[in-house]
């Protein structure tokens, strides 16, 4: 059995669990970002658009914030699942241990998780884009490219956080990761305002945020500003994923086949 085939089988499992439990995850992945879009894009956006105009936002605020939320929701939907889901799989419920007792390898299990994060984020992005478009938040026909941003970001998030979680004995550090890592990233990666608004000293930090690169790709796409930078940002995400995947594979091997 080839590597690709067995990763696909791990993906099948993840997608089946998704199909059986989609109601819960759909809230985080789709309903929540739409609520944010209504509150920020339309409620707050009216105020922003009437403002003094010093902010370097070239489009309606709704159109500015929609791609930000699209990318950010991929991060938020995947982060919790990567941390607690992996702990459940290797420890609490232990279903990953059952998987590696079959011809599947730890790398297959990890690969299935990473790919399913991409597939689910892609599906959520399609739904979100449709709603945002109906509300007038998606002016460009390049918009479908934003789905790629969500998929890449979900893959990076799952690959990185699963690689971290699988090395932990328990979940005691996970709330900290969420509070000090994921939430600040969500707020300060150009999701709600351009990173140029941040103090000069802090701005370079945004470059380190995978979400910022994802937001840039998504925003270039939905506002029709696709250029070489779009490709660079997407490339950074792809490179990040390529860098963390070997760490994840090794982590899963050590944990599941000690």
């Amino acid at each position, binding site marked *: *059995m080839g590597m690709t*085939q*067995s990763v696909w*089988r*791990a993906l*099948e*499992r993840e997608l*089946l*669990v998704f199909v*059986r*439990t989609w109601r819960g995850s759909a809230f985080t992945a789709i309903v929540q970002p739409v609520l944010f879009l209504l509150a920020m894009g339309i409620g707050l956006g009216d105020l922003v658009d009437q403002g003094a105009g010093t902010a370097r936002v070239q489009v309606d605020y709704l159109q500015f914030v929609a791609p930000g939320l699209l990318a950010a929701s991929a991060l938020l939907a995947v982060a919790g699942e990567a941390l607690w889901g992996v702990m459940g799989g290797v420890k609490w*419920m*232990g*279903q*990953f*241990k*059952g*998987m*590696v*007792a*079959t*011809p*599947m*390898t730890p790398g297959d299990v990890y690969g299935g998780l990473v790919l399913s994060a991409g597939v689910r984020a892609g599906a959520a992005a399609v739904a979100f884009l449709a709603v945002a478009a109906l509300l007038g938040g998606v002016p460009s026909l390049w918009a479908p490219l934003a789905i790629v941003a969500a998929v890449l970001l979900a893959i990076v998030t799952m690959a990185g956080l699963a690689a971290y979680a699988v090395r932990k004995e328990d979940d005691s550090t996970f709330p900290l990761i969420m509070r000090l890592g994921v939430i600040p990233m969500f707020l300060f990666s150009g999701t709600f305002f351009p990173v140029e608004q941040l103090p000069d000293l802090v701005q370079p930090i945004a470059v380190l945020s995978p979400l910022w690169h994802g937001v840039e790709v998504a925003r270039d796409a939905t506002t029709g500003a696709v250029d070489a930078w779009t490709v660079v940002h997407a490339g950074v995400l792809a490179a990040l994923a390529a860098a963390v995947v070997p760490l994840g594979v090794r982590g899963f091997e050590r944990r*599941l*086949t*000690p």
Partner: protein
Amino acid sequence: MADGTPDPDALVRARGLSKRFDDFVAVDGIDFEVRQGEVFGFLGPNGAGKTSTMRMISCVSPSTGGELSVLHLDPDTDGPAIRSRIGVVPQEDNLDTELSVWDNFIVYGRYFGLPRTVLRERAQELLEFARLTDRRDDRVDPLSGGMKRRLTIARALINDPDLVLLDEPTTGLDPQARHLLWDRLYGLKRRGVTLIITTHYMDEAEQLCDRLVVMDQGRIVDEGSPRQLIDRHVTPEVVELRFADPADQEAALGTAGEAAERIEVLADRLLLYTRDAQATHHALAVRGVEPLTELTRRASLEDVFLALTGRTLEE
């Protein structure tokens, strides 16, 4: 191995097999062979190295020394090929609790690359085998411990394995659930499936195993059939004496010893090993030993273990 000649058809063969985690030696150079169609047991207390051995056989934990072949293949290089032909029942159930009983069969079968048409047929049979037909569409979470255990065992058979590894299959189950499980395992044995079982229940080992090895502190201390081990290490009958208080037990020790071939002293009772329990009872009465209770029973693997590991007084 019992007669010293290696069996070329052995499904599992280990020579000097070891497993070390940093400074801790879990398995310390063990030799054994498991033959086609037998039920082979690893008997020993918790921490004896049984689970580590099972994990090496099931190719989810590389050995750190010695040789191991499983189904005539090398776990280091042929892990996926070996795992495709074995069934693994771990000590702790690792079912997909978010999925239904039925989905558990199908998803697990897909890991082996089996087509869905084949899986549906097998899952139906295995539902019956596990006596879970009426729970088919229920989620796994609310099932009882015994049901989950039966499902875990049935799921391990989805690939129609040549070899099934069961790690402490009945730990934590009530007697009724245990007997139902034993019945299912006998069924597998009748179908010619080779089984490897670890247990710390002496009665389970005696009931199920054709042959077993006794493990203690990472080593194999002896091997044979339950009958052979009992014959080799203990007398056929045991007289158990309980006394009103420890001082009485202490006082009776010397005289009681004369009434049997061998004596084991436990915290709460004396075990007198004898070939003739009647004679022992008589000898005790003649010598004026008056315990609170005097019980005669057949010798068991429990006695073998006691004799082999020598945790109590010297024989």
